Structure formats: C-alpha cells, structure tokens
C-alpha cells in the first residue's frame, strides 16, 4: 500500500490570498510567478512579500519592490537555498504580530518545513496555507534511527543514517515534515521487492 488513501496524506487546494490579512508572505521553493501559484491577486489590498529559492550564491536576499495588478505593493526576495530562506523565515516569524498570512508552494518537504516553522511561531493552522507543486519526491523519516532522507523518488530507499532499506509509507507527519520509512526486510533480511520510481 505505497500510494493509498491514508488519511494523514495531505490533500492540497490552490492557494488563495486571505482578505482578512494585514500582510501576506508567499514562499516558493523556486521561482514561480505569483499569478501562477495564488488566486485573489486582483483584489488584494494588503502588502505582499514574495520569497523564492533561487538556488544560487549569486543572490543576496535584498528586497525588490514591484506592484501587483491591484496596485498593492509586492516586495520580492530571492534566497540562495531553502535552508537560507527558512533561516530568514524563523527570524521574521519571531518578530511578527497578528495579521500575517503565510502561503507555501513547492515540493512537500519544503512546504511542510515552512508550516512547521509557522506552527512553532504560534500561528494557527488556518493562517498558513500549503500547496504542492513540482516533483512528487518525498522526505522520508526513518522510524528506526530518526534520520530524514530527503528527495526520495523510489518505493524503497536506503536510509542515509542507518542504511536500512526503507519502504516509503503513505503515512505523513506534519511535525517531522516527512513520510514514514520502515525497514522493508526486517522479517527476512534481503527479502524485498525491487525499488520502483514512483515519486517522480
């Protein structure tokens, strides 16, 4: 049961700007045009911050101001890597006041790391929307050694911590921002199905 209807598996809807917000922060794991990832831009009044991962050391996260179609202010920043962005996000959330709405779009490991920081900063679940985009590859939490192996695309993958061959289950933890991995051949060592590419 690798891909199933397990209820811990997130179901996503398109992002939509919350009209009750005082500030919006839209976060993406790569350069994705705002109007492709979020609805409601035409009527937005509150200022929008738009942070993206550029995946290059050539950027420095400096703000660049644009105007949305509605006329609201859009401040864009590009970060060198997701770790760089998440570090900046923790800093920002620690100083935020009520009225911020957070939106994360990208691969699952990324968006749930954003959601975890939001939760740790005391935001309500409804104040942080997530939407999946891009590869289906998964971050896998090894239930035996607690290592998270990122970017798994196959039904069975070696844990980067203890080396066990893990079955990637459909059971997802928002706390760990990862799927559960369980040793495939624990009962009979060496006895497991060949790995198939199922999360391209």
């Amino acid at each position, binding site marked *: 049961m690798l891909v199933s209807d397990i*209820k*811990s598996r997130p179901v996503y809807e398109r992002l939509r700007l919350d009209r009750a917000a005082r500030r919006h922060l839209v976060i993406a794991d790569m350069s994705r045009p705002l109007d492709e990832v979020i609805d409601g831009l035409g009527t937005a009044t509150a200022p929008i911050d738009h942070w993206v991962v550029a995946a290059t050391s050539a950027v420095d996260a400096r703000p660049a101001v644009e105007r949305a179609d509605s006329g609201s202010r859009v401040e864009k920043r590009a970060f060198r890597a997701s770790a760089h962005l998440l570090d900046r996000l923790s800093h920002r959330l620690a100083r935020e006041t009520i009225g911020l709405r957070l939106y994360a779009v990208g691969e699952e490991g990324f968006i749930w790391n954003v959601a975890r920081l939001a939760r740790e900063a005391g935001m309500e679940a409804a104040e942080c929307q997530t939407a999946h985009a891009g590869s289906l590859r998964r971050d896998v939490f090894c239930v*035996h050694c607690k290592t998270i192996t990122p970017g798994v695309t196959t039904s069975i993958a070696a844990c980067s911590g203890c080396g066990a061959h893990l079955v990637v289950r*459909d059971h*997802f933890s928002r706390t760990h921002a990862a799927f559960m991995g369980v*040793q495939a051949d*624990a009962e009979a060592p060496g006895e497991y199905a060949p790995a198939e590419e199922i999360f391209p």
Partner: protein
Amino acid sequence: MTIQFKPEETFRDDFSYANSDAAVLRFPFPFPEDTYMYSVNIEPHVPGGPSPAYDNPFDVDEHYVAECAERARVLEQDPSRCKILPHMMAAQWDTLELIMESFATSYPELFSLTREGTRWTWENRPLGIRDSFTFGDASTLPLPPFEYITRQAQGDFTLQDQREDNLFIDGGMVTTQADWSLDFDVGMTFHQWHGPVPLAHQKGVFDRALKFLLRLQFGQPVRRLNWTMTINPRLDTSPENYPQWGPDRTTVTAENVGRKVHLRVELQSLFRLPRSNAILFGIRCYLCSIEDLARVEIWGKRLHRVLRDLHPDIADYKGLTRYRELAVAYLSAFDDGAALPTGTAPRQSILPAKG
C-alpha cells in the same frame, strides 16, 4: 485480594512470561461472535463484565511488577517513547491524580495516597516507592508528573488535546505498542494518526468515534477492546525496534505454534480530564498464548473461526500473514463446529492441564 506478582518474568530474550490459570481465565477475550470486523465497539467503562479485568479503572494483575521493569528498560534505551508537548502540563497533573486516586481506591493494600491540601504523599508498595510532593509543582517530583506515574502503571497512555473540533495526540508513554510510533505520530489529528488502518475509514468508523469522543464527559469513562497477534510474549513490538522483533514472525512452526503465537488484546479506556479538558487514553496490553486460550473450550473454537475467516486486508495490517495458516491449523483441532453462544465469558472456572 492478594496478587502474586512475578517480578522476574521477562518479555524479551528468554521470554519467561507466562499466565497462571487464574490469569488465563480473566483474559479479556475480544470476540463475542464467530467473525470480526472493525466497529465503534465503545461501552461505558464501569465495573463489571465478563472478566475481572474490567472491575477497576486501571487493572493491576500478576504481571504488574515485571511490566514496570520492562518499561524502565525500554525507556533507558529509547527515551523518545515518552513525549509530551509543552502545552500539556495541566493534563500531566490530571493523569497523575487520576491514576493515583484510582490505584489507591482499587488496591488499598498496594497503594496509598495521602492528601493535605496540595501536599501529597504517594506510596507504591509493590515497587517500593514513597514520595511526598506538592501537587502542581513539578520540581518536587523526581520526574515530570506524567512520566512519573505512567512508569508505575501497566499499559501505554496517550494524551489527546481537544481543539478545533478535533483531538490531537499531544503526548504519551508508549513502550508496549502494537507497531505504531508515538515519536512519528505526535501532534497528529485523530484521522491522521489512524491513517494507516485499512477499511475502517471507509466504513465511517473514525468519523463516528471522533464525534463520540469530543462529547466524552468527565466522570463517565468509556472502553473498547482491540486486538492483534504477537510472536512470543513481547511487549515492545514498536516500529522503532521492528528490525529486532520482525524476524520472530519467521520462527513459527507446526510444532511450536501453540506456545509462540500470542493473542494480544488491548483494553482501551478513555477518560476526560478535569483541568485540561484533554482525554487520557489507556491502552492496556494483555498477552496469552493460543495454547493457553484453547484450554478455554469456547475461546479455542471461536478464535479458530475468527482467524480462519478474517478479511485479508486486516490480516495483512495486523502482520499475521506469515503464520496465520499455521495458527488456524493448530486451532482447528479444538473446533468441532458446534454453535457457540454470543459473548466472551469463559463459561468454565477451571482449566484442563496443559498439553
């Protein structure tokens, strides 16, 4: 009532755990009918029923001392089995109060609780513990209150916080579990942590159970039974240690099946807690070899029929697939096919000799 504890028995390595005849007869057998399917089988947790295991809020039996020692061993190797989110401190004290009061009332010869305002003294004679502390002040106990008291109780416990019309598993002490991980599931909603269970979601079991539990009242606890099977009397069948216990499933033979295969029953109880409004979920595990169960005539026959006709998805989920046929073949020798009365009571007061 005196309980003859067996402090030396083990749930790992040489597996010296065994049930006395009295313990077999009080086993909370889970099958009132010849077939099994998931259902919301919740009933009031009031004293009485087909087994003395239901007579108290928290049952203490002959395995108490050994089970507490086993819990301490698991925690020494893996402290992540006890995890509580920071906002659950009121629920920790609620749990300590509920278990201490229940134990002292149910088993006054074993436990006593003296309260003078917030100055409490707790005495646990079987484990040789005596502590005085200030209720509400965690610095006066040697361990955080939830860990302190659940180390002195049989069975696992989880704490469910209630908010947003949902229950969140925001803490627990889980060392005797049937293959689920608290460390992975902590913080999940009711439907999320039950995610891997097959069939029951489609039947609406969890929707109905959640609605029911959100209305659970203080002072009106409820209970249900769940079951699976375990090879050897092993309490710690955690996913964390699956590489250690998984190979046991390949060791069952026609010769040893009666002794190796154990029915594992969870007496699950749910209590609304008074200060925190959280729910304490007790998951008390009972283990009995199918050889011993078959000494109760009605149980041997019924278990044979349930296992033989079990839905394959449930057998798979419970991990029975490798040895189910051997167990069914073993039990078939005890089943003459006669119609059985509905219910779980053993309907006999002595057991025939073993073997």
